[in-house]
């Protein structure tokens, strides 16, 4: 049982949690994640460790409610508990002084990109971040990013805040303006990561994405999280989650993530409207 020390919505459907987890707080590195199970009978889901405080023994996670488990998690409040939290899992991000590093976060991906952006800055990079969302309410962690980055650009699909357009447009603009970019980290919805890879490929810019397949154990035991990178099958939970964006088979990942669509819908309907089940 891990206690939730603090919980607060930071955008529509996006909630920040500070959770008691001293062991993980003391160990975790940028790019690593935890797997949580809210309660008995619950699913195991992976969530990136957005931040940690080893003195207080806490970790921060930022969760977007998109299905049953994330919505149920987002209904928890300060003082509630989470049954299982395991981590830190996955390989830490590969950090070095590349020169100029751009971190791109789409939606809740910004939360996942944040710890790595911090580490890139600490390693001496000139750090730029491009954060985007569909609309103003979905742009998160802008202040935090501004605190650590040399430049921050905000985009929204509908133009309600920052520049109108996708994060890839901003990236393209930066490249076209002649800025020398040495490294790009892109985290967000799969189509966004694919689009970033397509933008940087012709320029030969080293680009890393963090993959989000469906996971079960998170320790390399089940193989459910497998993806194709280059001509190799990888287990994302232990070989990643970060990989060379130019080699990832994004289509396969999109398809595999649809495996349980039918069940996810059923789960969510039952969670949001339990009376339905009782009546049939």
């Amino acid at each position, binding site marked *: 049982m891990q206690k939730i020390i603090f919980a607060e919505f930071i955008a529509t459907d996006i909630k920040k949690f500070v959770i008691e987890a001293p*062991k993980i707080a003391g160990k975790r590195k940028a790019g690593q994640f935890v797997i949580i199970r809210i309660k008995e009978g619950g*699913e195991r889901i992976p969530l990136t460790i957005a931040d940690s405080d080893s003195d207080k023994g806490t970790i921060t996670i930022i969760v977007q409610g998109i299905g049953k488990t994330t919505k149920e998690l987002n209904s928890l409040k300060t003082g509630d508990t989470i049954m299982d939290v395991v981590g830190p899992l996955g390989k830490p991000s590969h950090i070095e002084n590349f020169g100029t590093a751009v971190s791109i976060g789409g939606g809740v991906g910004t939360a996942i990109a944040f710890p790595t952006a911090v580490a890139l800055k600490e390693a001496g990079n000139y750090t730029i971040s491009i954060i985007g969302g569909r609309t103003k309410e979905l742009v998160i962690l802008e202040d935090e990013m501004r605190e650590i980055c040399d430049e921050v650009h905000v985009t929204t699909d509908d133009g309600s805040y920052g520049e109108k357009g996708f994060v890839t447009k901003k990236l393209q603009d930066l490249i076209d303006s002649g800025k020398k970019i040495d490294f790009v980290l892109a985290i967000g919805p799969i189509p966004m990561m694919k689009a970033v890879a397509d933008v940087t490929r012709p320029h030969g810019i080293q680009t890393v994405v963090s993959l989000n397949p469906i996971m079960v154990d998170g*320790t*390399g035991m089940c*193989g459910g999280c497998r993806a194709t990178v280059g001509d190799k099958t990888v287990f994302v939970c232990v070989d990643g989650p970060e990989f060379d964006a130019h080699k990832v088979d994004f289509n*396969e990942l999109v398809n595999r993530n649809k495996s349980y669509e*039918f069940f*996810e819908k059923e789960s969510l309907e039952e969670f949001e409207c339990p009376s339905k089940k009782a009546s049939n």
Partner: protein
Amino acid sequence: MEELTNKERMQIPRQKMPEQDPEKRKKNFKEVNLGFTEELAIKEAMRCLQCPKPVCISGCPVDIKIDEFIGLIAQGDFLGAAAKLKEDNALPAICGRVCPQEEQCEIKCVIGKKNDPVAIGRLERFAADYEREHTGIRKPEIKAKTGKKVAIVGSGPAGLSCAGDLAKMGHDVTVFEALHELGGVLVYGIPEFRLPKEIVRIEIESLKDIGVEFKTNSVIGFSDTIDELLENEYDAAFIGVGAGLPNFMRIPGENMIGVYSANEFLTRVNLMKAYKFPEYDTPVLNCKDKNVAVFGGGNTAMDAVRISKRLGAKNSYIIYRRSEVEMPARIEEVHHAKEEGIEFIMLTNPLEFIGDEEDWLKAVKLQKMELGEPDDSGRRRPIPIEGSEYVMDLDMTVIAIGNGSNPIIQKTTPDMEYNKWGNIVVDEETMKTSKKGVFAGGDIVTGGATVILAMGAGRVATKAIDEYIMNSSEW
């Protein structure tokens, strides 16, 4: 009770264990075997000749005093029999259910030369169940505290048996487990209908009662490394992390939706209880009215295929590249699978999985095989028959062709000796690894083996660990 002559004993037929009717059981996850009644157990126990030199014992990896415990059952002293079992086997209710008895203890039984051997496993199960159901598991004697601390990594049968024995010696024992539940393959691999999880849970409770501490959600290597355990708190460590890395066949289409590793399929169903979806949140792909094929011929394959039937599959197949005699699965499991309507396609190997445009599995291309000369394993090598390829419709498949060793420990503890498959190298007399203070046993050492061998390894290590932490710290 009157004494029987050996001749009279030999005339008693081997007693059948009651089991759920196949038609009924293939629709539920309840235990298939129902266990002996007291009468059946006594009758079966009477068949044992109480040999002056009980050769059956030589077939048991932990040297259970088989003649003695069966003698006690014959006398109606069921609790005495359970106590006798516990002297050598920490988990008799489990071994009695899952041991491959037919090739271990029972194959050695003298009666087996002419008749069916004594049903040692079923009697073991009976005595252990009797104790659990009538008195609860009784607490063993525990020696005075030594103040020494041992870390056990992994809560499968190897780790549990090591933990139990060390605790009885008075040591402080902490078991670290990566998953949220304890028991290793006993909970995530072997299905409920073969080994009810309640039994595993009660066995583990009995270890808690004697002071063993359990820490779930602790992936050693990530949360603490072996070095950190030894530096910070523990006098020795035992690694029993099992063989947790699924093998795939490396053929085209293996990443399609509908292709599962046995580990994923079993974990979803057994550990996460996907068969109770949506009461439990984790789903498993729909098998109802579908064609499901499981590739492999071991216990894992049998478990997976029998689960698919219970999840409503229209056709469930075992597809194996050798012939039925080479299948490593227990005979009882094969027999049960056939009774439940599983179809066996032998001497056949997959070449390629075929899917639709969204990567959903639709079919598999298969090739027939024939048996050639024996290979390293002593079994005849399957050779492809050119031109025998054909396509079979398929909606879901499970690859159950064995496990490799999970690399987490190796990557985070590089200064220990491993073989080329990543198994930890140990001295078989003591289970000592090449690293001071670290012992290992079970599947991580042997590769995928059996519950009783893993438990045996845990026991062997116990003696050496005790010796090491109490008497010397030499390596």
